């Protein structure tokens, strides 16, 4: 019952707002935020009761021949931890949004979408099998699309929304095929039943045949496709930076704390299953590492405060994925949790800065905000230190755990992780220096005033959590230590050498950053000293351009071919050639539809003749 409430309350809120309250924005926002807070409290209660929550009623959703898909909420430790993150951060961000979206024209719509998102995200967390997860996975994608394009009158926003949806769809199709493979190989898509099966064939000592192994590997990679799309891993990462066109609370909730982490959550959920296919885990680890390093490098050269944070999110997600890939799901989930706190904090603080500066996003037009926005500054500082992994804050503990696993498993990836750690400290220092230090570099920055309390309160709570979440008395750290699903996970040893390296690197990064950006001018110091490197990084290694070019030139090539076809086949063959050739530039298949009935009849009879000759073997 409790679980159903947690799942369905946001849906009810969405329905109520969508149906009745679209013209009453104030009431709508209250309903939505109230629901979010209630959900968080209920979730805490449910977690308090832990596994003793009465089993929720089974809702049988689909029966297709031998396949049966039930909607049974999953309520193990993993789901509990993730529920906590989603509902708690969600509630705080809802409260924050009350202030942030105060005067927006589409306030009611915004809160309706937020409720829809909360519903679908909670659905992913509680999903007990692949199909249900996929359904909510798509719903999350939809609500993310709606929220990115929320300000659709901004030209970039609609485009960004479409890009996000298309890239996600690409990943989702891989995911879907993967699910189909799971279905046809194991005849079930239920996580628990799959878990039992996995046990059986590992302990039973059945040697897998090579063929089965390669099928399993393909299956694992396809499932990972979905993760790569949702969690913005290389090479499907291009949508996340653009997604920052959405309102800042959305960036904080969806594109930093929860939705993008859904990929990592899914990896952990099916970890028992992946643990069987070590090759796939290796691929996952390397993709994660590459993403982490790539994104950290890009973050160094961004000028937009939200884009810096977006790349940082991508980089941290890369670390988590790498953690899972190296066989450490528990550290990855730990990092996911702490990251949700401090990244949400950073985004909300950035939002606070943006409100104070009337939506000026370029960091080189800020500066000197330390004195003007003291609370925001302190919160941002806490988030920044936690993210950089300064010892004693939550980020340090979680990152340390992942990298310890890396140290034990793969020294190269440990090196990558250390480099990422250094770069993180470096670009966050750069950000701090540009935004808060020095003098104000624009009119807006000069007149900034602290934001209202309703926005500051969530900042403070999140700041406290960012500092403290790493300590074991809060329980987060050890929440999954003895989680049965992770039984086959690697146990990281503790190496003093690695510990000291990890403790030292953030300070080195901060020091380097401070040296380079101590006296900020209007321009980026890196751009002056190493212009080539800066261009490379600012262009994000030209991934978007590469994709654009691929699409454009692919089309160009196709068009050339079509032109040729048009000129020589259609035109020369004279089906009302001239007028056609000008109209047929679009694409090959449209060319056939010339509008000339006789041409159609000729195609029809040619098809008929070919069919007859082919099937009756008359050639």
């Amino acid at each position, binding site marked *: 019952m409790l679980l159903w409430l947690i799942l369905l309350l946001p849906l009810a809120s969405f329905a109520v707002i969508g149906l009745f309250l679209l013209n009453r924005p104030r009431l709508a926002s209250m309903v939505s935020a109230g629901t979010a807070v209630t959900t968080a409290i209920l979730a805490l209660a449910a977690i308090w009761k832990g596994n003793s929550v009465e089993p929720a009623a089974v809702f*049988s*959703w*689909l*029966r*297709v*021949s031998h396949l049966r898909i039930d909607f049974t909420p999953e309520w193990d430790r993993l789901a509990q931890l993730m529920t906590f993150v989603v509902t708690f951060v969600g509630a705080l961000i809802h409260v924050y949004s009350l202030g942030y979206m105060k005067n927006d024209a589409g306030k009611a719509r915004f809160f309706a979408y937020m409720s829809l998102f909360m519903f679908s995200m909670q659905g992913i967390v509680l999903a007990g099998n692949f199909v249900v997860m*996929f*359904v909510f996975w*798509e*719903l999350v994608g*939809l609500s993310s699309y709606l929220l990115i*394009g929320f300000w*659709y009158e901004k030209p970039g926003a*609609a485009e960004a929304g*479409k890009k996000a*949806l*298309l890239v996600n*769809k*690409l990943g989702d*199709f891989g995911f*879907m*095929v993967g699910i*189909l493979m799971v*279905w*046809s190989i194991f005849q079930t898509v239920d996580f628990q039943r799959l878990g039992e099966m996995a046990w059986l064939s590992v302990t039973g000592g059945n040697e897998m045949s090579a063929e089965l192994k390669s099928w399993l590997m393909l299956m694992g990679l396809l499932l990972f496709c979905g993760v790569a799309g949702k969690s913005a891993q290389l090479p499907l990462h291009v949508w996340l930076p653009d997604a920052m066109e959405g309102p800042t609370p959305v960036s904080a909730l969806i594109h930093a704390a929860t939705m993008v982490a859904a990929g990592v959550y899914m990896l952990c959920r099916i970890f028992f299953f992946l643990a069987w296919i070590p090759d796939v885990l290796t691929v996952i680890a390397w993709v994660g590492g590459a993403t982490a390093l790539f994104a950290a490098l890009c973050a160094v050269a961004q000028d937009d405060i939200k884009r810096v944070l977006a790349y940082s999110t991508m980089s941290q997600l890369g670390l988590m994925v790498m953690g899972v890939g190296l066989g450490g799901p528990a550290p990855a989930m730990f990092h996911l949790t702490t990251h949700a706190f401090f990244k949400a904090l950073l985004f909300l603080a950035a939002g606070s800065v943006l409100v104070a500066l009337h939506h000026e996003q370029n960091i080189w037009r800020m500066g000197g905000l330390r004195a003007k926005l003291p609370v925001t500054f302190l919160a941002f500082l806490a988030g920044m230190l936690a993210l950089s992994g300064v010892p004693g804050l939550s980020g340090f503990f979680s990152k340390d755990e992942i990298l310890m696993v890396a140290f034990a498993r793969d020294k190269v990836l440990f090196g990558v992780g250390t480099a990422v750690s250094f770069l993180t400290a470096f670009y966050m220092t750069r950000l701090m220096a540009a935004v808060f230090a020095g003098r104000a570099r624009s009119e807006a920055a000069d007149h900034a005033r602290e934001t209202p309390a309703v926005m500051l309160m969530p900042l403070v709570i999140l700041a406290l959590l960012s500092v403290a979440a790493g300590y074991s008395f809060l329980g987060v750290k050890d929440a999954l230590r003895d989680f049965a699903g992770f039984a086959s996970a690697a146990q990281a040893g503790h190496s003093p050498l690695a510990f000291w390296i990890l403790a030292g690197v953030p300070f080195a990064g901060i020091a380097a950053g401070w040296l380079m950006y101590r006296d900020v001018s209007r321009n980026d110091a890196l751009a002056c000293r190493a212009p080539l490197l800066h261009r490379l990084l600012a262009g994000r290694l030209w991934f978007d351009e590469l994709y654009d070019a691929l699409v454009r030139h692919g089309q160009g090539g196709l068009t050339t071919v079509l032109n040729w076809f048009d000129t020589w086949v259609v035109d020369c063959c004279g089906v009302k050639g001239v007028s056609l050739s000008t109209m047929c530039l*679009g*694409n*090959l*298949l*449209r060319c*056939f*539809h010339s*509008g000339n*009935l006789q*041409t*159609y*009849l000729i*195609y*029809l009879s040619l*098809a*008929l003749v070919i*069919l*007859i000759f082919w*099937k*009756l073997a008359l050639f």
Partner: protein
Amino acid sequence: MEIHLLKSEMAVALLMGWLLLVDLFMPRIPKRYLARTAVVFLLGITGWLVWTGAGVGERWMEGVLVGGGGMFVLDGLALWGKEFAFWAALFAMVAGMRFAGKDDDHLVERVFLQLAACLGMMLLASASHFALVFVALELVTVVFYVLVASRRHDGLSVEAGVKYLIYGAMSSGVMLYGMALVYGATGSLGFAETARVAAQPTPPMLLKMGLLLMLAGLGFKLAAAPFHWWAPDVYEGAPTPVTAFLATLSKGAGFVLLVRMLTVAFGGMKEFWLPVIGVMAGLSLLFGSLGGISQTSLKRLMGYSSVAHTGFMLLGVAAVSCAGLGGVLYYLTGYLLANALVFGVMCETSGENPYQEIREYAGLGARSRWLAGALLIGLLSLSGIPPLAGFVAKLLMFKAAWQGGMTVLLGIALLAAVVSLYYYLNVIRHMYAGEPVLTDGLRVPYGVKLLQGALAAGVVAVGFFPGPWWDGSLMIVRALAGR
């Protein structure tokens, strides 16, 4: 001839005769009332069929009631086809009546013709003899020649009519010739005798040729590539309610016939027709999805979309499993509901006009939230977004294809699903984010709202609770394959 088997057909035929006579001899009665009465009667017949069908249905699933020397069969598939015909005709009639002008002389005649097409499909669903197949199919086709050209002051409608006429007549000629060859090979026109000859280890060449010609003719009805060339032009040019009817009833009739013919009459020649269906599926998917990309007219887009959907359904036929064929029936159910929604909204926004530019739909979300929502649900279902009916349907097709081992086709189908998603979303984007061309508010009557609400609920329900629909489809197909 066991007359009692023909109860529902006779009811429709009586309704047609009554309509014509009353219109002829009582010209004072306003035509709109007459047409509405016909709709109410048809609804009554539908309800009666669904009611009794559900009651006696179990028996029909088990055994087969045969009449007219094996010509007319009443089994699960037949019942399903009849119900499909009823619903398709009802939606099309309602859509057509909304836009009958006050001075519309031909409203009653058009309703009459729609009923005739419905009757044709009902007979087709039961036909297991090529003579009946031919006559019933021609009944449907001739009605559509007239309906497509029925906006006779509109050059595009007439042009579409001519194209449909010549193309359709040639296709039915080809199909008829195929039947003649089958007769030559078997000495009979019945499905049962055909099945006996087809089950021989090496079926005669004549039979093979006949089957190929018939598949080509059916390809026209289904709008399956490479026989689909007419579809975009005719979909665009025909009056919108007719396009809706064409997309639902005509395609449904084709698929019901295809399923019965291939399983019952030609079940023994699987190895022969399987590659043909596979190639038709693959080509339909490619042409339908890629061709729709750069369209600017929504109706034309729906033409390409219909080709693509045929491809998806043929995938299920090509899987030659109960799951695949049952999936086709499930797919058609969802397809009918979603199409009724989409075309219903198109009728509301711009009447019967042939060109329906996607641009005109810009800002529909602001003009009428209700219509935009209905169109949204319809398009999302067509594009296969969970948890709507279209999603489960596509999933079933993919699974059938996967289990049938058709990896290449599955790949094409996935590609087609992604590509067509693009053009459906493009419409949705225009609808909610585009710069509006028209700004006047749209008033939607309560009746239409009710109908569209019911349809939307149906799309969601069929998708969210696929159980009963899927079980029913599977039972029908099992009974068919078991004989």
